[in-house]
Protein backbone atom coordinates (compact mmCIF):
# COMPACT_ATOMS: atom_id res chain seq x y z
CA UNK A 1 0.00 0.00 0.00
CA UNK A 2 2.81 2.33 0.96
CA UNK A 3 4.55 1.53 -2.29
CA UNK A 4 1.36 2.24 -4.23
CA UNK A 5 1.07 5.71 -2.70
CA UNK A 6 4.74 6.41 -3.34
CA UNK A 7 4.24 5.49 -6.97
CA UNK A 8 1.08 7.57 -7.17
CA UNK A 9 2.82 10.64 -5.76
CA UNK A 10 5.75 10.14 -8.13
CA UNK A 11 3.37 9.75 -11.06
CA UNK A 12 1.51 12.95 -10.21
CA UNK A 13 4.74 14.91 -9.91
CA UNK A 14 6.11 13.40 -13.11
CA UNK A 15 2.98 14.46 -15.02
CA UNK A 16 3.06 17.85 -13.34
CA UNK A 17 6.65 18.49 -14.37
CA UNK A 18 6.57 16.95 -17.83
CA UNK A 19 3.21 18.34 -18.95
CA UNK A 20 4.59 21.76 -20.01
CA UNK A 21 7.22 19.96 -22.10
CA UNK A 22 4.58 17.82 -23.74
CA UNK A 23 2.42 20.89 -24.23
CA UNK A 24 5.14 22.83 -26.04
CA UNK A 25 5.95 19.76 -28.13
CA UNK A 26 2.28 19.46 -28.96
CA UNK A 27 2.12 23.10 -30.09
CA UNK A 28 5.25 22.67 -32.21
CA UNK A 29 3.57 19.87 -34.19
CA UNK A 30 0.41 21.83 -35.01
CA UNK A 31 0.02 23.43 -38.36
CA UNK A 32 -1.98 26.39 -37.03
CA UNK A 33 -0.52 29.05 -34.80
CA UNK A 34 -2.66 28.40 -31.76
CA UNK A 35 -1.31 28.22 -28.26
CA UNK A 36 -4.15 28.91 -25.89
CA UNK A 37 -7.41 27.99 -27.56
CA UNK A 38 -10.10 25.45 -26.87
CA UNK A 39 -9.17 23.20 -29.76
CA UNK A 40 -5.92 22.29 -28.09
CA UNK A 41 -6.11 18.56 -27.38
CA UNK A 42 -3.74 16.25 -25.62
CA UNK A 43 -2.80 14.76 -28.97
CA UNK A 44 -2.46 17.14 -31.94
CA UNK A 45 -5.21 16.72 -34.55
CA UNK A 46 -2.67 16.38 -37.30
CA UNK A 47 1.06 15.87 -37.10
CA UNK A 48 3.09 18.45 -38.96
CA UNK A 49 6.84 19.04 -38.92
CA UNK A 50 6.34 22.27 -40.87
CA UNK A 51 7.29 24.52 -37.97
CA UNK A 52 10.62 22.71 -37.64
CA UNK A 53 11.22 23.08 -41.35
CA UNK A 54 10.47 26.80 -41.27
CA UNK A 55 12.63 27.34 -38.20
CA UNK A 56 15.61 25.80 -39.98
CA UNK A 57 15.09 27.23 -43.45
CA UNK A 58 13.38 30.60 -43.17
CA UNK A 59 14.75 32.10 -39.95
CA UNK A 60 18.17 32.84 -38.49
CA UNK A 61 17.77 29.83 -36.20
CA UNK A 62 20.77 27.86 -37.63
CA UNK A 63 23.00 30.91 -37.06
CA UNK A 64 21.75 31.31 -33.49
CA UNK A 65 22.23 27.60 -32.89
CA UNK A 66 25.79 27.78 -34.16
CA UNK A 67 26.50 30.86 -32.00
CA UNK A 68 25.04 29.22 -28.91
CA UNK A 69 26.92 25.94 -29.44
CA UNK A 70 30.18 27.78 -30.05
CA UNK A 71 29.83 30.05 -27.02
CA UNK A 72 28.65 27.30 -24.67
CA UNK A 73 31.42 24.91 -25.68
CA UNK A 74 34.08 27.61 -25.41
CA UNK A 75 32.76 28.79 -22.04
CA UNK A 76 32.78 25.22 -20.77
CA UNK A 77 36.32 24.51 -21.96
CA UNK A 78 37.73 27.84 -20.75
CA UNK A 79 35.78 27.61 -17.48
CA UNK A 80 37.00 24.08 -16.81
CA UNK A 81 40.63 24.98 -17.47
CA UNK A 82 40.44 28.01 -15.17
CA UNK A 83 38.41 26.41 -12.40
CA UNK A 84 40.38 23.13 -12.31
CA UNK A 85 43.75 24.85 -12.08
CA UNK A 86 42.53 27.42 -9.54
CA UNK A 87 40.75 24.83 -7.39
CA UNK A 88 43.72 22.45 -7.45
CA UNK A 89 46.12 25.21 -6.44
CA UNK A 90 43.82 26.33 -3.62
CA UNK A 91 43.36 22.76 -2.46
CA UNK A 92 46.97 21.59 -2.58
CA UNK A 93 49.37 24.51 -2.26
CA UNK A 94 49.96 26.89 0.60
CA UNK A 95 48.81 30.04 -1.22
CA UNK A 96 49.20 33.24 0.76
CA UNK A 97 45.80 34.67 1.70
CA UNK A 98 44.02 31.47 0.66
CA UNK A 99 41.17 31.93 3.12
CA UNK A 100 40.63 35.52 1.95
CA UNK A 101 40.58 34.44 -1.70
CA UNK A 102 37.98 31.76 -1.02
CA UNK A 103 35.78 34.11 0.99
CA UNK A 104 36.05 36.74 -1.74
CA UNK A 105 35.05 34.20 -4.39
CA UNK A 106 32.03 33.24 -2.33
CA UNK A 107 31.09 36.87 -1.71
CA UNK A 108 30.91 37.58 -5.46
CA UNK A 109 28.05 35.08 -5.66
CA UNK A 110 25.92 37.20 -3.32
CA UNK A 111 25.18 39.83 -5.98
CA UNK A 112 22.29 39.25 -8.41
CA UNK A 113 23.37 38.95 -12.03
CA UNK A 114 21.13 41.82 -13.13
CA UNK A 115 23.01 44.17 -10.82
CA UNK A 116 26.14 43.46 -12.81
CA UNK A 117 24.57 44.25 -16.19
CA UNK A 118 25.49 47.91 -16.18
CA UNK A 119 29.09 47.60 -14.92
CA UNK A 120 29.72 44.77 -17.40
CA UNK A 121 28.20 46.88 -20.21
CA UNK A 122 30.46 49.83 -19.37
CA UNK A 123 33.55 47.62 -19.11
CA UNK A 124 32.86 45.83 -22.39
CA UNK A 125 32.15 49.11 -24.08
CA UNK A 126 35.50 50.52 -22.92
CA UNK A 127 37.33 47.44 -24.18
CA UNK A 128 35.35 47.49 -27.48
CA UNK A 129 33.92 44.07 -26.74
CA UNK A 130 30.26 44.86 -27.32
CA UNK A 131 28.73 42.83 -30.13
CA UNK A 132 31.68 40.50 -29.76
CA UNK A 133 31.65 36.82 -28.75
CA UNK A 134 34.79 37.33 -26.67
CA UNK A 135 32.92 39.83 -24.48
CA UNK A 136 30.23 37.27 -23.69
CA UNK A 137 32.80 34.51 -23.27
CA UNK A 138 34.73 36.53 -20.67
CA UNK A 139 31.58 37.40 -18.72
CA UNK A 140 30.14 33.88 -18.73
CA UNK A 141 33.45 32.26 -17.76
CA UNK A 142 34.20 34.73 -15.00
CA UNK A 143 30.74 34.72 -13.48
CA UNK A 144 30.57 30.92 -13.30
CA UNK A 145 34.13 30.62 -12.01
CA UNK A 146 33.66 31.23 -8.24
CA UNK A 147 31.01 28.53 -7.87
CA UNK A 148 33.01 26.07 -9.97
CA UNK A 149 36.24 26.75 -8.06
CA UNK A 150 34.49 26.15 -4.74
CA UNK A 151 32.84 23.00 -5.98
CA UNK A 152 36.03 21.50 -7.42
CA UNK A 153 38.18 22.57 -4.48
CA UNK A 154 35.80 20.84 -2.08
CA UNK A 155 36.11 17.67 -4.15
CA UNK A 156 39.92 17.84 -4.48
CA UNK A 157 40.11 18.28 -0.69
CA UNK A 158 38.58 14.82 -0.26
CA UNK A 159 41.23 13.08 -2.40
CA UNK A 160 44.03 11.50 -0.34
CA UNK A 161 47.39 13.29 -0.66
CA UNK A 162 49.23 9.98 -0.66
CA UNK A 163 47.98 9.05 -4.15
CA UNK A 164 49.62 12.18 -5.51
CA UNK A 165 52.78 11.55 -3.49
CA UNK A 166 52.90 8.04 -4.94
CA UNK A 167 52.54 9.44 -8.45
CA UNK A 168 55.37 11.93 -7.85
CA UNK A 169 57.66 9.18 -6.59
CA UNK A 170 56.60 7.05 -9.59
CA UNK A 171 57.82 9.74 -11.97
CA UNK A 172 55.12 12.38 -12.47
CA UNK A 173 55.75 16.10 -12.33
CA UNK A 174 53.03 18.34 -10.87
CA UNK A 175 51.21 18.73 -14.20
CA UNK A 176 51.30 15.00 -14.85
CA UNK A 177 49.91 14.36 -11.36
CA UNK A 178 46.98 16.63 -12.20
CA UNK A 179 46.45 15.24 -15.69
CA UNK A 180 47.06 11.52 -15.15
CA UNK A 181 45.80 11.02 -11.60
CA UNK A 182 43.68 13.84 -10.19
CA UNK A 183 41.50 14.54 -13.23
CA UNK A 184 40.58 10.91 -14.01
CA UNK A 185 39.52 10.30 -10.40
CA UNK A 186 37.64 13.60 -10.28
CA UNK A 187 35.36 12.83 -13.24
CA UNK A 188 32.13 13.17 -11.22
CA UNK A 189 33.02 16.64 -9.95
CA UNK A 190 34.27 17.74 -13.36
CA UNK A 191 31.07 16.47 -15.01
CA UNK A 192 28.92 18.52 -12.64
CA UNK A 193 31.08 21.59 -13.18
CA UNK A 194 30.99 21.19 -16.95
CA UNK A 195 27.23 20.74 -16.93
CA UNK A 196 26.78 23.82 -14.78
CA UNK A 197 28.89 25.95 -17.14
CA UNK A 198 27.30 24.51 -20.26
CA UNK A 199 23.69 25.01 -19.15
CA UNK A 200 24.38 28.49 -17.74
CA UNK A 201 25.89 29.68 -21.02
CA UNK A 202 23.28 27.84 -23.12
CA UNK A 203 20.24 29.39 -21.47
CA UNK A 204 21.48 32.84 -20.41
CA UNK A 205 19.40 35.71 -21.75
CA UNK A 206 19.89 39.00 -19.87
CA UNK A 207 23.61 39.46 -20.39
CA UNK A 208 23.47 38.26 -24.00
CA UNK A 209 20.72 40.81 -24.77
CA UNK A 210 23.01 43.59 -23.53
CA UNK A 211 26.20 42.42 -25.25
CA UNK A 212 24.92 41.06 -28.57
CA UNK A 213 22.72 43.40 -30.56
CA UNK A 214 23.46 42.29 -34.11
CA UNK A 215 20.83 39.58 -35.03
CA UNK A 216 23.57 37.61 -36.83
CA UNK A 217 25.47 37.30 -33.58
CA UNK A 218 22.60 36.46 -31.29
CA UNK A 219 22.33 33.27 -29.28
CA UNK A 220 19.30 30.97 -29.08
CA UNK A 221 17.56 32.59 -26.07
CA UNK A 222 17.67 35.94 -27.85
CA UNK A 223 16.55 34.36 -31.10
CA UNK A 224 13.59 32.68 -29.40
CA UNK A 225 12.51 35.97 -27.96
CA UNK A 226 12.51 37.49 -31.44
CA UNK A 227 9.64 35.16 -32.44
CA UNK A 228 7.52 37.13 -30.00
CA UNK A 229 6.35 40.59 -31.01
CA UNK A 230 3.89 43.09 -29.64
CA UNK A 231 1.42 42.39 -32.46
CA UNK A 232 1.69 38.67 -33.10
CA UNK A 233 3.70 35.77 -31.79
CA UNK A 234 4.71 32.85 -33.99
CA UNK A 235 3.79 30.24 -31.36
CA UNK A 236 4.35 27.29 -33.67
CA UNK A 237 7.83 28.41 -34.60
CA UNK A 238 8.54 29.42 -31.03
CA UNK A 239 7.54 26.00 -29.75
CA UNK A 240 9.54 24.14 -32.41
CA UNK A 241 12.62 26.21 -31.66
CA UNK A 242 12.13 25.74 -27.91
CA UNK A 243 12.00 21.97 -28.34
CA UNK A 244 15.23 21.99 -30.33
CA UNK A 245 16.89 24.29 -27.80
CA UNK A 246 16.05 21.99 -24.92
CA UNK A 247 17.47 18.88 -26.63
CA UNK A 248 21.26 19.41 -26.11
CA UNK A 249 20.85 20.21 -22.40
CA UNK A 250 18.61 17.14 -21.94
CA UNK A 251 21.12 15.01 -23.81
CA UNK A 252 23.99 16.31 -21.68
CA UNK A 253 22.06 15.49 -18.51
CA UNK A 254 21.33 11.96 -19.71
CA UNK A 255 24.95 11.36 -20.74
CA UNK A 256 26.35 12.73 -17.51
CA UNK A 257 23.68 11.40 -15.14
CA UNK A 258 25.90 8.46 -14.13
CA UNK A 259 28.55 10.93 -12.94
CA UNK A 260 25.98 13.27 -11.44
CA UNK A 261 24.67 10.59 -9.09
CA UNK A 262 28.13 9.42 -8.02
CA UNK A 263 29.31 13.03 -7.83
CA UNK A 264 26.57 13.95 -5.44
CA UNK A 265 27.31 11.06 -3.11
CA UNK A 266 31.06 10.66 -3.47
CA UNK A 267 32.03 13.53 -1.21
CA UNK A 268 30.50 11.77 1.76
CA UNK A 269 32.65 8.68 1.39
CA UNK A 270 36.25 8.96 2.44
CA UNK A 271 39.02 7.85 0.09
Amino acid sequence: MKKFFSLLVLLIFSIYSTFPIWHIFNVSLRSDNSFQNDSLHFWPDSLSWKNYEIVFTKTLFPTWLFNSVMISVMVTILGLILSITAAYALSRFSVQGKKGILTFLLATQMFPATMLLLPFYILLSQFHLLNNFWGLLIIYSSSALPFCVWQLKSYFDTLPFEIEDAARVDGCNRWQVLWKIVLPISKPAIAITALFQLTTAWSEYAMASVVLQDPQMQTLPLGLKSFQSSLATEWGLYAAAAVIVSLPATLAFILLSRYLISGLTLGSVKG
Partner: protein
Amino acid sequence: MANVEFQSISKTFDQQNILKSVDLKIKSGEFLVLVGPSGCGKSTLLRLLAGLEQPTSGEILIDGRNVKGVQPKDRGLAMVFQSYALYPHLTVKENLGFALTLNKTPAHEMEKKIQEVAEILRLTKLLSRKPGQLSGGQRQRVALGRSLVKNPKIILFDEPLSNLDAALRSRMRYEIKKIHQKTKSTMIYVTHDQTEATTLGDRIAILNSGKIIQLGTAQEIFNKPVNKFVAGFVGSPEMNILPAEFLGHKNIDFGIRPDDIQIGDGTAQASFELEEYMGSHYMIYARFQGQLLRITRSQSVSKKTGDLIPLNFNMAKAHFFDRVSELRTNS
Protein backbone atom coordinates in the same frame (compact mmCIF):
# COMPACT_ATOMS: atom_id res chain seq x y z
CA MET B 1 71.44 -0.60 -3.69
CA ALA B 2 72.54 2.77 -2.43
CA ASN B 3 73.75 4.26 0.79
CA VAL B 4 71.96 7.16 2.40
CA GLU B 5 73.22 9.86 4.72
CA PHE B 6 71.25 12.44 6.67
CA GLN B 7 73.47 15.30 7.79
CA SER B 8 72.12 17.58 10.55
CA ILE B 9 68.58 17.41 9.15
CA SER B 10 66.04 19.72 10.74
CA LYS B 11 62.46 20.28 9.72
CA THR B 12 60.07 22.88 11.02
CA PHE B 13 56.31 22.95 10.33
CA ASP B 14 54.31 25.94 11.55
CA GLN B 15 57.08 26.86 14.01
CA GLN B 16 57.12 23.32 15.41
CA ASN B 17 60.44 21.50 15.27
CA ILE B 18 59.54 18.10 13.88
CA LEU B 19 63.15 17.00 13.34
CA LYS B 20 66.08 18.38 15.32
CA SER B 21 69.46 18.04 13.64
CA VAL B 22 69.22 14.36 12.78
CA ASP B 23 72.41 12.56 11.68
CA LEU B 24 72.01 9.07 10.28
CA LYS B 25 73.97 6.85 7.92
CA ILE B 26 72.32 3.90 6.24
CA LYS B 27 74.53 1.36 4.54
CA SER B 28 73.97 0.10 1.03
CA GLY B 29 71.61 -2.90 1.08
CA GLU B 30 70.74 -2.39 4.73
CA PHE B 31 67.23 -2.82 6.15
CA LEU B 32 66.83 0.05 8.60
CA VAL B 33 63.69 0.47 10.67
CA LEU B 34 62.69 3.86 12.04
CA VAL B 35 60.50 3.35 15.05
CA GLY B 36 58.94 5.71 17.53
CA PRO B 37 55.65 7.03 18.88
CA SER B 38 53.18 9.05 16.77
CA GLY B 39 54.47 12.51 15.91
CA CYS B 40 58.14 11.69 16.58
CA GLY B 41 59.16 12.69 13.04
CA LYS B 42 59.83 9.27 11.54
CA SER B 43 57.50 9.67 8.55
CA THR B 44 58.82 13.18 7.96
CA LEU B 45 62.35 11.80 7.71
CA LEU B 46 61.13 9.35 5.06
CA ARG B 47 59.29 12.06 3.12
CA LEU B 48 62.40 14.23 3.16
CA LEU B 49 64.43 11.40 1.66
CA ALA B 50 61.72 10.81 -0.97
CA GLY B 51 61.83 14.50 -1.91
CA LEU B 52 58.16 15.02 -1.01
CA GLU B 53 59.23 17.61 1.57
CA GLN B 54 62.27 19.84 1.77
CA PRO B 55 64.41 20.02 4.92
CA THR B 56 64.55 23.34 6.78
CA SER B 57 68.28 22.79 7.16
CA GLY B 58 70.81 20.02 6.65
CA GLU B 59 71.66 17.81 3.73
CA ILE B 60 70.67 14.42 2.41
CA LEU B 61 73.13 12.36 0.40
CA ILE B 62 72.24 9.34 -1.72
CA ASP B 63 75.38 7.46 -2.77
CA GLY B 64 77.35 10.52 -1.75
CA ARG B 65 75.36 12.88 -3.98
CA ASN B 66 73.53 15.78 -2.39
CA VAL B 67 69.90 15.47 -3.50
CA LYS B 68 68.83 19.00 -2.63
CA GLY B 69 66.43 20.20 -5.33
CA VAL B 70 66.31 16.75 -7.00
CA GLN B 71 62.73 15.74 -7.87
CA PRO B 72 61.26 12.60 -6.20
CA LYS B 73 61.21 10.80 -9.55
CA ASP B 74 64.94 11.38 -10.06
CA ARG B 75 66.09 10.01 -6.70
CA GLY B 76 66.03 6.34 -7.75
CA LEU B 77 63.66 5.27 -5.02
CA ALA B 78 60.18 3.82 -4.55
CA MET B 79 57.77 4.23 -1.69
CA VAL B 80 55.02 2.11 -0.15
CA PHE B 81 52.35 4.02 1.75
CA GLN B 82 50.17 3.13 4.71
CA SER B 83 46.96 3.77 2.77
CA TYR B 84 48.33 1.78 -0.23
CA ALA B 85 47.87 4.91 -2.41
CA LEU B 86 46.90 2.88 -5.46
CA TYR B 87 45.50 4.72 -8.46
CA PRO B 88 41.78 3.84 -8.24
CA HIS B 89 41.03 4.44 -11.92
CA LEU B 90 43.73 2.06 -13.15
CA THR B 91 43.80 -1.75 -13.13
CA VAL B 92 46.34 -3.68 -11.07
CA LYS B 93 48.42 -4.13 -14.21
CA GLU B 94 48.29 -0.42 -15.02
CA ASN B 95 49.15 0.43 -11.42
CA LEU B 96 52.18 -1.86 -11.57
CA GLY B 97 53.28 -0.47 -14.91
CA PHE B 98 52.56 3.20 -14.18
CA ALA B 99 56.16 4.20 -13.42
CA LEU B 100 57.44 2.20 -16.39
CA THR B 101 54.97 3.94 -18.73
CA LEU B 102 56.23 7.30 -17.48
CA ASN B 103 59.86 6.47 -18.15
CA LYS B 104 58.88 5.08 -21.56
CA THR B 105 60.02 1.50 -20.99
CA PRO B 106 59.47 -0.58 -24.18
CA ALA B 107 56.19 -2.52 -24.09
CA HIS B 108 57.69 -6.03 -24.16
CA GLU B 109 60.12 -5.20 -21.35
CA MET B 110 57.32 -3.65 -19.31
CA GLU B 111 55.14 -6.72 -19.77
CA LYS B 112 58.01 -8.97 -18.65
CA LYS B 113 58.68 -6.94 -15.50
CA ILE B 114 55.00 -6.76 -14.55
CA GLN B 115 54.63 -10.53 -14.96
CA GLU B 116 57.75 -11.16 -12.88
CA VAL B 117 56.57 -9.00 -10.00
CA ALA B 118 52.99 -10.29 -10.26
CA GLU B 119 54.31 -13.82 -9.93
CA ILE B 120 56.46 -13.04 -6.88
CA LEU B 121 53.52 -11.36 -5.13
CA ARG B 122 50.82 -13.79 -6.40
CA LEU B 123 48.99 -11.07 -8.32
CA THR B 124 48.83 -12.80 -11.71
CA LYS B 125 45.11 -13.55 -11.48
CA LEU B 126 44.27 -10.04 -10.28
CA LEU B 127 45.96 -8.04 -13.04
CA SER B 128 42.75 -6.92 -14.73
CA ARG B 129 41.01 -5.85 -11.52
CA LYS B 130 40.71 -2.32 -10.19
CA PRO B 131 41.92 -1.53 -6.64
CA GLY B 132 38.31 -1.20 -5.43
CA GLN B 133 37.79 -4.91 -6.19
CA LEU B 134 40.71 -6.07 -4.02
CA SER B 135 41.02 -6.95 -0.33
CA GLY B 136 43.33 -5.01 1.99
CA GLY B 137 46.10 -7.59 1.75
CA GLN B 138 45.86 -7.74 -2.04
CA ARG B 139 46.01 -3.96 -2.27
CA GLN B 140 49.12 -3.86 -0.14
CA ARG B 141 50.73 -6.51 -2.36
CA VAL B 142 49.97 -4.33 -5.39
CA ALA B 143 51.51 -1.34 -3.61
CA LEU B 144 54.57 -3.44 -2.87
CA GLY B 145 54.68 -4.66 -6.47
CA ARG B 146 54.45 -1.12 -7.76
CA SER B 147 57.58 -0.26 -5.82
CA LEU B 148 59.48 -3.37 -6.96
CA VAL B 149 58.76 -3.08 -10.66
CA LYS B 150 61.07 -0.06 -10.98
CA ASN B 151 64.08 -1.93 -9.57
CA PRO B 152 64.76 0.97 -7.22
CA LYS B 153 68.01 1.42 -5.35
CA ILE B 154 66.07 2.34 -2.22
CA ILE B 155 62.57 1.33 -1.09
CA LEU B 156 60.82 3.39 1.54
CA PHE B 157 57.99 1.95 3.61
CA ASP B 158 55.72 4.29 5.56
CA GLU B 159 53.83 2.10 8.05
CA PRO B 160 52.77 -0.22 5.21
CA LEU B 161 51.13 -2.90 7.35
CA SER B 162 49.22 -0.75 9.82
CA ASN B 163 45.88 -1.24 8.10
CA LEU B 164 46.11 -5.04 7.96
CA ASP B 165 44.96 -7.61 10.50
CA ALA B 166 47.51 -9.47 12.64
CA ALA B 167 47.67 -12.65 10.53
CA LEU B 168 48.11 -10.73 7.30
CA ARG B 169 50.73 -8.45 8.88
CA SER B 170 52.80 -11.45 9.85
CA ARG B 171 52.57 -12.87 6.32
CA MET B 172 53.46 -9.56 4.70
CA ARG B 173 56.44 -9.15 7.06
CA TYR B 174 57.73 -12.45 5.77
CA GLU B 175 57.19 -11.38 2.15
CA ILE B 176 58.97 -8.06 2.66
CA LYS B 177 61.92 -9.79 4.33
CA LYS B 178 62.13 -12.31 1.48
CA ILE B 179 62.05 -9.51 -1.07
CA HIS B 180 64.86 -7.75 0.76
CA GLN B 181 66.95 -10.91 0.69
CA LYS B 182 66.28 -11.29 -3.03
CA THR B 183 66.64 -7.71 -4.27
CA LYS B 184 69.27 -6.49 -1.77
CA SER B 185 67.74 -3.00 -2.12
CA THR B 186 68.37 -0.55 0.67
CA MET B 187 65.14 -0.52 2.64
CA ILE B 188 64.00 2.09 5.13
CA TYR B 189 60.91 1.15 7.03
CA VAL B 190 58.84 3.37 9.30
CA THR B 191 56.62 1.79 11.91
CA HIS B 192 55.34 2.26 15.42
CA ASP B 193 55.03 -1.51 15.82
CA GLN B 194 58.04 -2.91 17.63
CA THR B 195 57.41 -6.46 16.42
CA GLU B 196 57.86 -5.22 12.86
CA ALA B 197 60.93 -3.29 13.95
CA THR B 198 62.68 -6.17 15.67
CA THR B 199 61.76 -8.84 13.11
CA LEU B 200 62.57 -6.85 9.97
CA GLY B 201 65.40 -4.49 10.72
CA ASP B 202 69.12 -5.15 10.40
CA ARG B 203 69.33 -2.06 12.57
CA ILE B 204 66.69 -0.03 14.34
CA ALA B 205 66.67 3.70 14.93
CA ILE B 206 64.48 4.78 17.83
CA LEU B 207 63.09 8.29 17.40
CA ASN B 208 61.44 10.51 19.94
CA SER B 209 60.57 14.21 19.76
CA GLY B 210 62.46 14.70 16.50
CA LYS B 211 65.72 13.07 17.61
CA ILE B 212 67.31 9.67 17.19
CA ILE B 213 67.55 8.32 20.70
CA GLN B 214 69.26 5.02 19.93
CA LEU B 215 70.57 3.26 16.85
CA GLY B 216 71.57 -0.38 16.89
CA THR B 217 70.54 -3.96 16.28
CA ALA B 218 67.34 -5.25 17.86
CA GLN B 219 69.39 -7.22 20.42
CA GLU B 220 71.48 -4.18 21.38
CA ILE B 221 68.41 -2.05 21.88
CA PHE B 222 66.53 -4.73 23.75
CA ASN B 223 69.40 -5.68 26.03
CA LYS B 224 70.90 -2.23 26.58
CA PRO B 225 68.33 0.53 26.15
CA VAL B 226 70.11 3.88 26.47
CA ASN B 227 67.37 5.53 28.49
CA LYS B 228 64.05 4.96 30.17
CA PHE B 229 62.05 5.92 27.06
CA VAL B 230 63.70 3.22 24.92
CA ALA B 231 63.42 0.72 27.77
CA GLY B 232 59.70 1.33 28.00
CA PHE B 233 59.15 1.51 24.24
CA VAL B 234 60.96 -1.65 23.10
CA GLY B 235 59.88 -5.04 24.32
CA SER B 236 56.46 -6.54 24.67
CA PRO B 237 55.19 -6.81 27.34
CA GLU B 238 56.71 -3.54 28.49
CA MET B 239 59.66 -3.42 30.91
CA ASN B 240 58.77 -2.89 34.59
CA ILE B 241 60.36 0.31 35.89
CA LEU B 242 60.23 1.11 39.61
CA PRO B 243 62.21 3.15 42.15
CA ALA B 244 65.43 1.33 43.11
CA GLU B 245 65.30 2.44 46.74
CA PHE B 246 64.42 -1.10 47.85
CA LEU B 247 67.85 -2.14 46.49
CA GLY B 248 69.60 0.65 48.36
CA HIS B 249 70.06 3.02 45.39
CA LYS B 250 68.97 6.64 45.64
CA ASN B 251 67.55 8.64 42.72
CA ILE B 252 67.86 5.62 40.48
CA ASP B 253 65.08 3.68 38.75
CA PHE B 254 65.27 -0.06 38.39
CA GLY B 255 64.09 -1.74 35.19
CA ILE B 256 63.38 -5.43 34.78
CA ARG B 257 61.64 -7.20 31.90
CA PRO B 258 58.65 -9.45 32.71
CA ASP B 259 60.66 -12.50 31.54
CA ASP B 260 63.45 -11.78 34.02
CA ILE B 261 61.37 -12.17 37.17
CA GLN B 262 60.89 -15.64 38.61
CA ILE B 263 58.09 -16.48 41.00
CA GLY B 264 58.60 -18.88 43.86
CA ASP B 265 62.08 -18.74 45.29
CA GLY B 266 62.95 -15.12 46.15
CA THR B 267 63.03 -12.94 49.21
CA ALA B 268 61.00 -10.08 47.73
CA GLN B 269 57.28 -10.40 48.41
CA ALA B 270 54.61 -9.14 46.03
CA SER B 271 50.86 -9.16 46.34
CA PHE B 272 49.16 -11.17 43.60
CA GLU B 273 46.43 -9.28 41.71
CA LEU B 274 45.42 -11.29 38.66
CA GLU B 275 46.68 -13.41 35.77
CA GLU B 276 45.88 -13.54 32.07
CA TYR B 277 46.18 -16.61 29.86
CA MET B 278 48.08 -15.56 26.72
CA GLY B 279 48.18 -18.91 24.90
CA SER B 280 51.92 -19.65 25.08
CA HIS B 281 52.30 -18.18 28.58
CA TYR B 282 50.56 -16.47 31.49
CA MET B 283 50.81 -12.79 32.30
CA ILE B 284 50.86 -12.28 36.06
CA TYR B 285 50.04 -8.90 37.59
CA ALA B 286 51.36 -8.36 41.13
CA ARG B 287 51.88 -5.28 43.30
CA PHE B 288 55.39 -4.68 44.65
CA GLN B 289 56.55 -1.60 46.55
CA GLY B 290 53.26 0.01 45.55
CA GLN B 291 53.96 -0.52 41.82
CA LEU B 292 52.17 -2.89 39.45
CA LEU B 293 54.59 -5.51 38.05
CA ARG B 294 54.09 -7.60 34.92
CA ILE B 295 55.62 -11.06 35.07
CA THR B 296 55.51 -13.71 32.35
CA ARG B 297 55.39 -17.34 33.37
CA SER B 298 54.82 -20.60 31.55
CA GLN B 299 52.40 -21.87 34.20
CA SER B 300 49.55 -20.47 36.23
CA VAL B 301 50.43 -19.38 39.80
CA SER B 302 47.04 -20.56 41.11
CA LYS B 303 46.74 -17.79 43.70
CA LYS B 304 43.94 -15.59 44.92
CA THR B 305 43.99 -11.80 44.83
CA GLY B 306 45.96 -10.49 47.78
CA ASP B 307 48.04 -13.68 48.28
CA LEU B 308 51.74 -13.02 48.77
CA ILE B 309 54.10 -14.44 46.16
CA PRO B 310 57.92 -14.53 46.52
CA LEU B 311 59.86 -12.93 43.62
CA ASN B 312 63.39 -13.40 42.38
CA PHE B 313 64.77 -10.66 40.08
CA ASN B 314 67.45 -11.79 37.59
CA MET B 315 69.91 -9.02 38.49
CA ALA B 316 72.22 -9.93 35.60
CA LYS B 317 69.54 -8.59 33.32
CA ALA B 318 68.54 -5.60 35.42
CA HIS B 319 68.62 -2.05 34.01
CA PHE B 320 69.30 1.10 36.04
CA PHE B 321 68.38 4.62 34.98
CA ASP B 322 69.15 8.00 36.50
CA ARG B 323 65.84 9.39 37.73
CA VAL B 324 66.58 12.95 36.55
CA SER B 325 68.37 12.49 33.22
CA GLU B 326 66.61 9.13 32.59
CA LEU B 327 69.87 7.81 31.08
CA ARG B 328 71.13 4.28 31.62
CA THR B 329 73.65 4.05 34.42
CA ASN B 330 74.80 0.41 34.25
CA SER B 331 76.85 -1.02 31.39
